[in-house]
């Protein structure tokens, strides 16, 4: 051992010496170098390692270099660029924009609506329900007020006409005085039994005695307690006792002869109201009995009107009460402020009062032409209400209704690609401007809005109000349209037609920024979900490249294992695996992928599991080719001397496979994997385009294209999205193919074609 060590060290030392000498000589030569190289100079021959050779051959190939550069750029673009590009993959963007939509619904109201203006007085629903019919009665008879009487006649409400179409409902402080009758039937006398049957109040014995006395005396008339009565023969055995003149049966205290005379006069003149001592009385006939009520209206509990007030002090009961009661007077004072009322429009169609404050500025509008926002809230400005009133009046007078088209709920649904049977006639030659199409219907109207500007302020846009030098908001006009809709309702067999006027115009809205054109903010615009297209292209590239690499990795792994086993062991294992390869070669993979994609759709899988499944299936269906390649390579390598040598020197089987066989298969594997990458990216994008691969909202190049090519209009409008993305796919696949070709040529120059 020692000897050997010595010998080796001696050798090493001497070898080192030789090297040193050589280096010294070379240094000297370098120093003395005068540009001449001897024929046998070692510098003339540059020996490259096999790897260097491959590299050198590779970089000589222009197309391969182009491919490499493209791939590097793609990787930077899809993996590095999103780090600096702040927008996310599924970040939804919003913007201020004008949207043409309904801003008001107007109609001439004919229904009476009750406004409770005194919360202290409770109004039973019985009275409310009777308001409409009582209003009708007042309008028909032309009286000032009418009583709404409860069923037991104990309580009454007074409905007073304050103005045309304006009524106030107040509790009656007066009472039911009693019932009155001229020639009232008091009782029936059965002559045989000499008994009395009273139809009303029971009379005392003196009355009965007086009556019998008169009967016995065959007198027709008798008098008792200051009242005259008449006996009227019905049959021989039956007489009726009727009080002559008027008789009042009081509920409470008697009111004296003045009152009774007035009652009699009213009854004889067939009038139902009279006034005694400054108090109004009303006579209501019910089932043949005249009931007399005194009418002393209390505080207003409710206002019943077809009109609606909007403006300042809306909901302020004092203000409203004063307003309602002052329509005739034209002026009123609340809380020390004086308001004037002007009847604007009494045109036979609707009435309208504008309320102005002391400075003459309009503060409110009371009208039965009701204008509300489409959601029923009173948010339309007074200025616009005036404009709308004028315009609708014009429409009604000139009869220029434009009926609104029925909205088709399916109208906006784009037809699915596969069901398209569109012929040239169906194509929209104009490209379709939605706003102008919607605007074309209806009577034009100019609405007044505060002038606003949507400004792009750094990241988010802002909607700013314009002000003039006095700090007053600047008003501007917006073109709009009025269309007419008629709705019919049938209630209790009565069909009523209501005519509504829908006013639409462009309005500023905080909208999802969908299908946005390219701007400084979104270089490639936004897509149908308001996502930034450029960001999605980056993330889409990420998915496409990742899918490509993972699938190819799975394919290669499976292929190497199966092909390695088949090639190394041979015999029946080889036979079995190769038949399996034949079978997998024969399976139509695209249909299988489509079936599984549709199946995953059916199951409603989330995007991420879907992606994983898709990659697994793609990898599982694609290993056969690589297995065949590996097997063939290993079969030929197995017979070569170096493998015989490994066997002879007793190298372990696993080491023989992984250290000696696989590295020799590597070049072919790299080539086929690189070339396969392009194919996988194509398959993935096709599946995603068909909606069977990666799903929105996850971005891939396929889904980006499919989102903007769902209709002809989209294809036309979004060329700046689908053409670049399509070219991006194409470029990536080309790059992988070029690199694959370049690698093949570099690894195996003899095969260069």
């Amino acid at each position, binding site marked *: 051992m020692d000897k050997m060590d010595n010998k080796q060290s001696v050798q090493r030392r001497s070898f080192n010496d030789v090297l040193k000498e050589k280096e010294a000589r070379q240094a000297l030569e370098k120093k003395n170098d005068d540009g001449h190289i001897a024929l046998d100079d070692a510098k003339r021959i540059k020996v490259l390692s096999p790897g260097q050779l491959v590299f050198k051959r590779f970089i000589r190939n222009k*197309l391969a270099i182009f491919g490499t550069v493209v791939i590097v750029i793609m990787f930077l673009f899809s993996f590095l660029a999103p780090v600096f590009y702040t927008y996310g993959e599924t970040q939804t963007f919003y913007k201020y924009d004008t949207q043409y939509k309904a801003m008001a619904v107007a109609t001439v109201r004919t229904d009476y609506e009750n406004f409770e203006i005194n919360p202290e007085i409770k109004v039973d629903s019985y009275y409310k329900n009777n308001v409409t019919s009582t209003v009708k009665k007042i309008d028909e008879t032309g009286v000032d007020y009418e009583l709404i009487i409860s069923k037991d006649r104990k309580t009454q409400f007074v409905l007073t006409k304050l103005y045309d179409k304006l009524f106030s409902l107040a509790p009656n402080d007066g009472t039911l005085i009693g019932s009155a009758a001229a020639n009232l039937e008091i009782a029936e006398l059965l002559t045989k039994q000499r008994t009395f049957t009273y139809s009303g109040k029971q009379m005392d014995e003196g009355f009965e005695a007086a009556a019998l006395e008169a009967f016995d005396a065959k007198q027709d008339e008798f008098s008792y307690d200051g009242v005259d009565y008449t006996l009227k023969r019905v049959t021989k055995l039956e007489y009726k006792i009727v009080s002559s003149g008027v008789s009042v049966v009081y509920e409470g205290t008697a009111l004296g002869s003045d009152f009774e005379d007035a009652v009699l006069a009213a009854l004889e003149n067939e009038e139902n109201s009279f006034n005694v001592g400054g108090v109004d009385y009303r006579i209501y006939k019910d089932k043949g009995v005249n009931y007399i009520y005194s009418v002393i209206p209390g505080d207003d509990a409710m206002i019943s009107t077809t009109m609606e007030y909007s403006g300042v002090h809306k909901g302020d009961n004092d203000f409203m009460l004063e307003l309602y009661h002052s329509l005739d007077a034209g002026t009123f004072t609340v809380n020390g402020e004086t308001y004037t009322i002007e009847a604007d429009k009494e045109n036979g169609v609707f009435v309208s009062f504008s309320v102005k404050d002391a400075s003459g500025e309009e503060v409110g509008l009371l009208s039965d032409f009701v204008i509300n926002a489409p959601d029923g809230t009173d948010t339309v400005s007074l200025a616009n209400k005036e404009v709308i009133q004028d315009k609708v009046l014009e429409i009604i007078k000139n009869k220029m209704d434009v009926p609104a088209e029925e909205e088709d709920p399916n109208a906006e649904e784009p037809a699915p*690609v*596969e*069901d*398209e*049977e*569109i*012929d*040239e*006639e*169906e*194509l929209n*030659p*104009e*490209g379709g401007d939605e706003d102008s199409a919607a605007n074309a219907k209806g009577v034009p109207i100019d609405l007044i809005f505060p002038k606003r500007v949507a400004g792009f302020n750094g990241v988010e846009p802002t909607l700013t109000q314009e002000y003039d030098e006095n700090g007053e908001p600047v008003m501007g006009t917006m073109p709009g349209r009025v269309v007419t809709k008629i709705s019919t309702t049938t209630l209790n067999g009565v069909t009523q037609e209501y005519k509504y006027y829908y006013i639409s115009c462009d309005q500023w809205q905080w909208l999802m920024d969908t299908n946005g054109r390219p701007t400084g903010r979104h270089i490639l615009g936004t897509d149908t979900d308001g996502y930034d297209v450029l960001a999605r292209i980056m993330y889409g590239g990420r998915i496409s490249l990742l899918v490509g690499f993972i699938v190819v990795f799975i394919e290669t792994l499976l292929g190497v294992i199966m092909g390695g086993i088949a090639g190394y062991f041979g015999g029946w294992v080889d036979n079995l695996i190769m*038949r399996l390869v*034949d*079978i997998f*070669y*024969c*399976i*139509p993979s*695209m*249909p*299988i992928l*489509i*079936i599984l*994609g*549709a*199946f995953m*759709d*059916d199951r409603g899988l989330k995007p991420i599991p879907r992606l994983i499944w898709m990659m697994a299936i793609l990898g599982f269906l694609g290993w056969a080719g690589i297995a065949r390649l590996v097997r063939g390579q290993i079969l030929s390598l197995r017979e070569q001397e170096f493998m015989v040598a490994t066997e002879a020197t007793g190298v372990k089987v696993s080491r023989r496979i992984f250290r000696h066989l696989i590295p020799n298969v590597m070049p072919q594997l790299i080539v086929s994997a690189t070339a396969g990458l*392009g194919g996988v990216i*194509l398959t993935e*994008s*096709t599946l995603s*385009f*068909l909606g*069977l691969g990666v799903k929105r909202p996850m971005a891939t190049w*396929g889904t980006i*294209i*499919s989102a903007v*090519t769902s209709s*002809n209009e989209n*294809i*036309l409008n979004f*060329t700046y999205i*689908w*053409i670049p993305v*399509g070219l991006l*796919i*194409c*470029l990536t*696949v*080309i790059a992988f*193919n*070029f690199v694959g070709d370049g690698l093949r040529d570099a690894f195996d120059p003899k095969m260069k*074609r």
Partner: protein
Amino acid sequence: MSKFIIKRLLISVVIFFFVMFIIYALEYSLPSSYVDKMARQLQSKPGNTKSFEELKADLDAKYGMDKGIIGGYFAWLGHMVRLDFGDSWQWTDTVLNVFKSCIWYSFFLSLIAFIFELIIAIPLGVVAARKQYSFTDYFVTVVAMVCISMPTFFIAVLLKYLFAILPSQSSFPEWLRWIKLPLSGMGSARTSHMTSGWASFLDLAKHYVLPILTLTIISIGGLMRYTRTNMLEVLNADYIRTARAKGLPEKKVINRHAFRNTLIPLVTILGSSLPGLFGGALITETLFSFRGIGYRSYHSLTNGDIPFTMFYLAFSAILTLLGNMIADILYAVVDPRVRIS
């Protein structure tokens, strides 16, 4: 030779058996949503007294879904051998009737595209090989690569845009209007008004143009490259050098000596793609709503129409096997050096 063919045929039958078994097992294992759907429809019909499970069991029995994978597969095989593929659920007709109604559309689509492919790709490949490393060569190589690398759907959308959507715009120049082609489908809405056969034929032909163009574009790249590669190999062969050495005109060298030998691999690969002409173009036909076998199959596949799907997959598998067999046989026929063992 006949022994070789018979052997290949038998192997193909065995492979077919296992391929279809895998496919059947896959189809069987998927919840048959169509049966579920049908059972639900029947359940909601008035006068129905059966429960959903009973209805589903009835339908399963009707469609042979109740026999288990193995039993069901053999039952299917038995029917298949007798060319009984059942009724298509999607197209409400027997599978074979649907097949018969659409196969020829697909065949002519593929055939015409195939002819164009031959006419364009082979000469370009030969030219590229003759002038290796020239501009022409690079140009052909790049064009071939672009054609290979373009996704079908992108070509389809691009062609629709260029030839159907743009020409129907009002801004499109009037003198170029004639290039306008139908967007998709197989007949214009006016077809019913066409009295003359010629007009309806012309209409149909118009509908063929874009799908054919798409198929041609996606297929020429591969053939161009293949032709170029094989031509280069032949051009580097000794006998070409000999031919040149003995002073033959270049035309003769290329046409007689080089091209004829290039034809050996070409004929093989083209022969093997002949059966594929019947298979239709799944994606292209779908994208253009071209009512061929590919379009029908796509909708059957996505809608769980098992009878038609099984038929289509079996048909595709047979075509693939047939193609492989033809390739092997042709190789032996065309090249006498290949020994049959």
